[in-house]
């Protein structure tokens, strides 16, 4: 894993179909349905992961095009999967589902489905066949069906296999292939055979090396049968005529071996970003004698396609929808920044985000307006349209959200994008705006968008813009506390939150209501009696929101043997390390820079003096990626001042930097757990 971990992003292989060469297809893995290997049956633990509950022994798939006179080309997907169940916890793997798409007119269909379970009983192989009683069909919604299969006779030690074929009329929907699951995979391969008429691009992600990565081509032919009536008045006769068409079939084959299980870790954009997978996208087709239909081959194509799309570009022409609002804003101010601000507010007030992520408008902006709600594209395309109408320099920016994976700049494709935001440029400076979230300040896009780069959708002159947070995320804890001689700590704590933390506080304040949110906050601070909670500037998004607590506690200071001591930041410091694992497989991605600060003042009771204070510390990560500073000092004869600042500027840390990052947090936790000790005079 180590030699690969230096690459933060997935492996890219683009446009394999350009060169045509005939290569031998090597390193084959034979798997015949019905023939299980004795070793597979006697295996008691997975050779590459002793803890695995189940292991994929072999997973072989292929997609190819098949021609028939009645239906023309159809896309065929075949899969043969064999799994070994090692523990009862792995029983869930014996229930599988095959998703099937339908667009209302045509549908994907399972044409072949067989399965078998093998058990070793007293040294003999016992086979159980999958029968129809174990296959169910579920209509999930208008577009998706699921074929669900539960293999019969599965117990600990079973091996089962399933083989199925899906016929699809949707030629552009080549099935993606996942090499990696949450159980280990010993062998996985995918082969694709495509007639020269279709051109696909391929995108591979993950950290798994391919042991087979081949491409080649071979001549193929199809026979078209045409019929014509050749009978006489008395004898019906149909004459068939066969025409053979030759073409070249391109193939490629990928295989990986001994693929470890995927594991969840904190601060990853999405484990799926790092999961070994290949995806295909149709970017053009051309039939013999016909013209070439291009989908996406370059970023210009992506942009052209979007600008011509009814659900994207066409929406940006609906100027009459925003005329009135634009005029009002123009009339109220001439300052472009202020105008953009007002446009953002206006958008938020007329279309509420319905929670859906997409780059395409659902039913058009006009429908979204009348409903008062729409998806991310409705909201942000409206914002672009409004700013444009005001006369600002505004363009849409398409991007892929954190959950959706990375965009590869050298791999033009449209499907990777799942979101659109607005970019307004004033005096040469870009401001990225996202009207989906109600409580983020101007210029701060929602957290989900912080994922590499976005593409401006404008012709000519597209460019890539950095999707980073315009301000750090963090809280400032400011406390003035007073300790009395009975050990009671009381005072005022102000927590000031900016960036995404501020947006979260505001979101809760407005969606739950002040009362309910206060009640929740009171419950969180268990060791404290809270006599007051006040919120400062919850509604002015441009300044940090403050929560001011008036609180007291008999619980936080301890009295032992003439000493009074308490935690240096009471109960408010960093009490645990978010990075619990000793090693890390995927990068840590914070999204935004972090700034967490504490400034505490303690007044100590008369008759006591400071016996000891935690010492100062200053630690930095390499290349100024982050710093932690801490100090505690005595001011006058009865005051203690404590300052702590964590400032992380870098947002993405690769696994090789993990140790240092984890250590930094360990030191913070350590420092924040130290005690201030007072002694009775």
């Amino acid at each position, binding site marked *: 894993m180590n030699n690969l971990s230096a690459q933060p992003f997935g492996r890219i292989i683009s446009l394999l179909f350009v060169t045509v060469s005939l290569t031998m297809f090597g390193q084959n893995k034979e798997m015949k349905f019905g023939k299980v290997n004795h070793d597979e049956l006697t295996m008691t633990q997975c050779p590459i992961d*002793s803890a695995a509950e189940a292991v994929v022994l072999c997973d072989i798939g292929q997609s190819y095009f098949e021609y028939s006179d009645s239906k023309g080309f159809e896309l065929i997907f075949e899969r043969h999967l064999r799994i070994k169940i090692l523990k009862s916890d792995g029983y869930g793997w014996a229930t599988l589902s095959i998703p099937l798409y339908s667009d209302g007119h045509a549908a994907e269909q399972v044409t072949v489905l067989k399965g078998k379970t093998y058990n070793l009983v007293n040294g003999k192989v016992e086979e159980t066949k999958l029968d129809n009683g174990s296959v169910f069909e579920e209509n999930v919604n208008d577009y998706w069906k699921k074929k*669900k299969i*539960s293999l019969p006779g599965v117990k600990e030690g079973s091996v089962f296999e399933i083989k199925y074929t899906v016929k699809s009329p949707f030629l552009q929907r080549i099935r993606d292939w996942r090499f990696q699951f949450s159980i280990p995979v010993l062998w996985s391969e995918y082969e694709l055979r495509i007639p020269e008429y279709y051109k696909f691009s391929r995108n591979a992600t993950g950290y798994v090396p391919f042991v087979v990565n081949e491409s080649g081509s071979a001549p193929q032919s199809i026979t078209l049968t045409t019929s014509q009536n050749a009978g006489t008045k008395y004898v019906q006769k149909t004459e068939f005529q066969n025409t053979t068409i030759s073409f070249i079939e391109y193939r490629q084959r990928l295989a990986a071996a001994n693929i470890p299980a995927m594991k969840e870790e904190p601060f990853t954009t999405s484990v799926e970003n790092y999961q070994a997978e290949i995806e295909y996208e149709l970017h053009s087709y051309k039939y013999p004698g016909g013209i070439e239909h291009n989908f996406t081959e370059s970023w210009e194509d992506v942009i052209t396609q979007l600008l011509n799309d009814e659900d994207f570009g066409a929406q940006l022409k609906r100027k009459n929808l925003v005329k009135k609002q634009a005029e009002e804003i123009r009339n109220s101010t001439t300052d472009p920044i202020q105008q953009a601000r007002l446009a953002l507010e206006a958008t938020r007030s*007329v279309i509420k985000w319905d929670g859906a992520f997409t780059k395409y408008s659902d039913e058009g902006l006009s429908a979204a307006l009348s409903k008062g709600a729409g998806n991310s594209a409705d909201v942000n395309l409206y914002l672009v349209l409004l700013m444009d109408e005001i006369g600002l320099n505004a363009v849409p920016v398409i991007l892929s959200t954190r959950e959706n994976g990375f965009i590869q700049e050298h791999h033009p494709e449209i499907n990777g994008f799942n979101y659109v935001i607005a970019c307004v440029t004033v005096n040469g400076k870009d401001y990225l705006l996202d009207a989906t979230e109600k409580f983020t300040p101007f210029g701060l896009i929602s957290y989900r968008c912080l994922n590499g780069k976005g593409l401006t959708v404008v012709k000519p002159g597209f460019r890539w813009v950095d999707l980073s947070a315009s301000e750090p995320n963090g809280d400032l804890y400011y406390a003035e506390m007073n300790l009395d001689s009975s050990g009671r700590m009381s005072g005022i704590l102000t927590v000031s939150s900016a960036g995404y933390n501020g947006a979260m506080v505001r979101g809760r304040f407005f969606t739950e*209501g002040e009362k*309910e949110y206060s009640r929740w906050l009171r*419950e969180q601070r*268990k060791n404290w009696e809270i006599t007051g909670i006040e919120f400062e500037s919850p509604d002015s998004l441009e300044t940090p929101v403050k929560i001011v607590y008036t609180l007291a506690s008999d619980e936080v200071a301890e009295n032992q043997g003439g000493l009074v001591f308490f935690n240096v930041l009471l109960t408010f410091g960093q009490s645990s390390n978010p990075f619990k*694992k000793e090693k890390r497989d995927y990068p840590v991605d914070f999204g935004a820079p972090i700034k967490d600060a504490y400034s505490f003042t303690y007044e100590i009771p008369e008759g006591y003096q400071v016996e000891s204070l935690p010492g100062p510390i200053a630690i930095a990560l390499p290349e100024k990626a982050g710093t932690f500073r801490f100090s505690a000092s005595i001011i006058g004869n009865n005051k203690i001042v404590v300052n702590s600042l964590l400032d992380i500027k870098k947002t993405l840390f690769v696994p090789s930097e993990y140790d240092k990052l984890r250590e930094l947090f360990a030191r913070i936790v350590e420092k924040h757990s130290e005690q201030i*000790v007072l002694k009775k005079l």
Partner: protein
Amino acid sequence: MNRYHVLRFLVSSWILMGALTVTSFAEEGFYPASSIPHALTIGAGAVVRLSETMVEISSVKSIRKGYHLVITILHEDALDNASVYLYYNEFRRIGGASGGIFNAEGKEIQKIRLTDFTDRSAVPEGTLHSSDRVKIYTPVYNGTYPVTFEFEYDIIGGAPAHYPEWTPQDGYGVAIESASLTVSAPFNLFPRYYAVNIVSRDSEKIVGDTKMVTWHLDNLTALHREPYAPSLSERTPGVFLAPVKLDYRGFSEDFLTWNDVGKWINYLLKDRDVLPESVKYRMKQISDQCPDTISQIRAVFHYLQSSKRYVSIQMGIGGWQPLDATTVDEQGYGDCKALVNYTKALLQGAGINSFYTLVNAGSRVPDILCDFPSMQFNHAILCVPLSGDTIWLECTDPTIPFGFLGSFTDERHVLIVTDTDGVIARTPVYSCDMNRLNRKTVISLSFSGDAEIEMTTYYSGLQSQIVYDLARKGIEEQKKALASRIGIPDITIKSVTYTCDSNAIPIICERIVLIARSYASVSGERLFVPVNRMNRMNALTVNTEERQAPILTGYPYLDMDSILVKWPQGFHVEALPSGDSIDTPFGKCTMRIVLDSLQWIYTRSFEQNKVRFNVEDYPEFRSFINRVAKADRQKAILRKTGS
């Protein structure tokens, strides 16, 4: 539709009853938010302004349910309360649904139609198959709050033996202004009913051979989640209904007593326990090899556990008829009912009699209403009566110890289905003494406050469930889970092992060796050593408004900890917390520290019985918990000798 809201299909009944009421909302708007009584807004995200439920039974096979709901949402966060789920399947269909959205003043701003509902399969995640589907209304709203939603919908039909239950206050943070249930049925078919947390029914009317009964509730304030509280359903009002007669495919019987319920289940189980001869023979062989009945049952149970698995399939008469034993045998899987029925058949093959048993499973659910015979169950287990002791078998878990039920089905009333009828019985109670945690910890401190810790813990009875899943996981997952469970910030786990003793009272032994960095915090010349980081009580907040719920603790348990702390030469004890002994009706706790040279031994025992107390006792209960919590957080101080 705007001004006169009367359930359409009810009109007929009401006219019939001569009680037609026309609700009129003159000029002041439809349920304006300003008319909500102040008390109902406290702690509430939503207020049910009106909830009318009408259950119309016209024959033994025909039931129709009509709903009229008006709900005001006070904050965006509570918008989900305006979601509506209309389930349907082969027994029930949706008669119609409509509604509207109204602003705070009560002016209609949008209409809701059945086409605004999305239709989808209602097969839950993890279920292989069921025929249930659902139409879901998800509110989409961008305006100001409060906002009011109105819905009217009818559901026609229902699974045999199942009548609806009425629990209008079914969520936290929801207040009820007015809610009613009206049941109308021919005299001889009028359902049996059972009201909980509700004083009496309002009115009863009889016209011809039809009887109509109405329950009415108003002004219920919102409830919020609280620790040590009974479940919501135990605290809020409800009316449960059950048919008096069943008529389903040739089964035509009274449905009045537990015996009758048993007969119905027997009908569903009829001839489903037939096994292939080969399996019967195998069971005979197994039983012949075992010296006594208990070991025979054990061997059969292990055969089940090793050869069959649980797959959820909610099919067959609304999900109540199990797959037959032969199919389970062939496919190797089944749901709870199918596996219980199958195990019963296996035991039969071994010559042992057992009973299919229905239970309302869940770890903090209220017991069934024993004096209201009806289908109050969601799970099946097997009861094997023996002359000495009864053995209970949970058949869906391939690793559960033989004879152990766990907190999922313990200590509650169940329906045992005998060959002829049904009998109510009670599952075993796991007492304080059975649910133990015994832990020995040895901590060796270094100069810098780091520690090497060895911990051996025995979890028994219901406490074994704490580590039951973890014990079966891989080492990496165990380490990850323990790093979070052990509350010490920076630890490196060197080794973990689990050994399981699978008795009817299971015991799991956990051995952990770990290194804890900065276990004791350093301040100048001193080391602050927490006396107990292994088993700390969670404090209860003192900041909540008045407690609403009575006190209900979880299962009874007894924890015994002993923590030996050793420190290096060169330190001496400067301060040591004194022990404490607390004995209250809520529980008992004793803590002691004994000092020796270069080490001390801390012992703590905590005993909690399953207790129920009134809400007035809460402050005292909380101070008990918080006193223990505070003592658990104490630190001892070691100081460098000579400083």
